[in-house]
């Protein structure tokens, strides 16, 4: 058929147009990741004579045996999960608060949105200094005592890490709140009105009607929350010039690679959480994807 030939041409043109972007992604993303995977199976290090030797799963086995790795992994994953859950809860609260008009709504909306709008580089330092005041203040003694106890119980740098956690939650819940508000506004009012006609319990209406209708937005919010949690960790470490010394995977790998010169081991470390992330992302995309195969095409008349 003539149409299939022109269609093949269209497809070819589509690929040609995509080629620059694909090349960029391959160069900037795919190639480094592939290299990293390869490197994790070697003992690559500037300190070794000769070239890198293939060591198989040795790097990974070393990690599994290292209790420090497990502690760092727990901290990293715990940080991501806890901040996500809290951000989601607070975000939903903000969205429900702002969805219907009331007297001071514009002001409240601004207050909710500011943490996200405010430059992160400045606010992270603000949070760090709130918990560890750089100058004597009314509460610096109190903060100092808390820091002593927390660091004593959880290890050096725990208190500073807490400030990063609070920063992430404070900023993230602001964004999630506005994001979910957009989601709520996208839902036709009649769907909520009908629920009002059938149920007196706001709690039940929330779980049976609001949450399912908001599912794609919630899934995306969780995804964004997780990814920003991980990126925040590395950003924050660099912003504070390494003051955050609490062990997390990313910074640990950085130490290992740049300071320790163990590139192969560092690559293995960086990739250690990838399987976990892939599973989570897969589940999220399942929740996000609303497209279903139709049971049967609807009849043309009525």
């Amino acid at each position, binding site marked *: 058929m003539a149409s299939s030939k022109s269609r093949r041409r269209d497809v070819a043109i589509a690929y040609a147009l995509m080629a620059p972007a694909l090349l960029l992604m391959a160069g900037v993303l795919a190639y480094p990741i592939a290299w990293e995977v390869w490197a994790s199976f070697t003992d690559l290090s500037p300190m070794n004579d000769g070239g890198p030797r293939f060591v198989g799963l040795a790097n990974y086995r070393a990690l599994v045996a290292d209790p420090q790795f497990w502690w760092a992994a727990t901290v990293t994953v715990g940080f991501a999960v806890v901040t996500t859950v809290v951000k989601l809860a607070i975000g939903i609260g903000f969205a429900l608060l702002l969805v219907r008009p009331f007297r001071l709504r514009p002001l409240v909306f601004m207050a909710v949105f500011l943490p996200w709008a405010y430059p992160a580089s400045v606010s992270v330092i603000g949070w760090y200094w709130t918990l560890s005041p750089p100058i004597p203040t009314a509460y610096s003694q109190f903060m100092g005592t808390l820091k002593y106890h927390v660091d004593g119980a959880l290890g050096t740098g725990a208190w500073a890490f807490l400030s990063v956690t609070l920063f992430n939650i404070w900023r993230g819940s602001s964004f999630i709140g506005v994001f979910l508000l957009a989601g709520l506004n996208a839902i*036709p009012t*009649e*769907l909520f*009105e*009908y629920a*009002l*006609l*059938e*149920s*007196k319990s706001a709690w*039940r209406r929330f779980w*049976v*009607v609001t949450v*399912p*209708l908001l*599912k794609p937005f919630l899934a995306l919010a969780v995804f964004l929350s997780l990814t920003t949690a991980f990126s925040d960790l590395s950003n924050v470490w660099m912003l504070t010039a390494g003051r955050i010394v609490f062990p997390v995977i990313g910074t640990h790998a950085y130490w290992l690679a740049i300071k320790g010169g163990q590139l192969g081991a560092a690559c293995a470390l960086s990739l250690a959480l990838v399987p976990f992330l892939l599973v989570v992302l897969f589940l999220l995309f399942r929740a996000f994807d609303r497209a*279903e195969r*139709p*049971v*049967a095409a*609807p*009849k*043309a008349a*009525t």
Partner: protein
Amino acid sequence: MAQVVMKDLNKKYDEVHAVKDVNLHIRDKEFVVLVGPSGCGKSTTLRMVAGLEEISGGEIVIGDRVVNDLPPKDRDIAMVFQNYALYPHMTVYDNMAFGLKMRKFPKAEIEKRVQDAADILGIRELLKRKPRQLSGGQRQRVAVGRAIVRHPQVFLFDEPLSNLDAKLRVQMRVELKRLHDRLETTAIYVTHDQVEAMTLGDRVVVMKDGYIQQVGEPLELYGKPANRFVAGFIGSPAMNFAEATVGEENGSVLVTNAGLRMTVPPAKADRMRAYKGQTVTMGVRPEDMHIAAADGRTGLDAVVEVVEPLGSEILLDVMVGNTVMVARVDPTVRAKVHEKIRLNVHPDRLHFFDAKTEQAI
């Protein structure tokens, strides 16, 4: 007794007074249609009955209870929305069962009610589908089915057919009427379409600017409109209006204007005499106009502007003096554009309205 009584019902939104002093008594099993142009307050009134809007003044009684402070769920009403309001993440069955599940009905009872409603509406095979797999008409039926399963005291319809195409609307109209005959439940139906109002309503309530203009059976509104607005709103094509001066000649009352000269029927003559010398608004329906002989003392001198042949009839858009009018004539009439013709109307079919108050004379 599922009557609905509205006493001095008022609704104010800050500056806007949307519903003004509505008094209406809807009898048990009656199908009442609220009709009017956009913004007339019909939907707001319906929503106040449902409990989706706060009542600013007055009271609403459903059955024998005043429901002003009763939450929507406890009012024993079921509503069908214009946009169907079906939950996209639930199957048709779950959508229909939703209200019953919220009220903790036993599973067997829910199953029975949903299957019965599905049978009545002919949607048995659709129960496992999701709303996005249904056509507009099918979704509408699911929305109606969802209301039926609740066995409410009153059905509330908020322009349910407005989103359907014209042909489907005609079909669904008939189905709704049959449904009402079968279910014998009080119903309040809101629409902006006067054809729907006339065909569906036991009684029709015409509203404008928040006020009730007239309440009555469809033919009563058609034949005896209380004011100019109702006269022009009911009937399609709309009633023709012309300004005319009242005069008297040899004992009979006449109205005259450029191109028209009509006798007032004896029944109205006395009332019209009071307007002698003044201008009134004369109304005549297109279907009451017919081609007349060129001679004759009364009639309308018209110039044909547009001929609309519809098959079953012909619509003539004509100019009478300075007024545009539409006449509905027999399909056998041969009229050409720019042709001068004579139209006449039986005096009993004339309507007269006070030029200032717009009330019927």
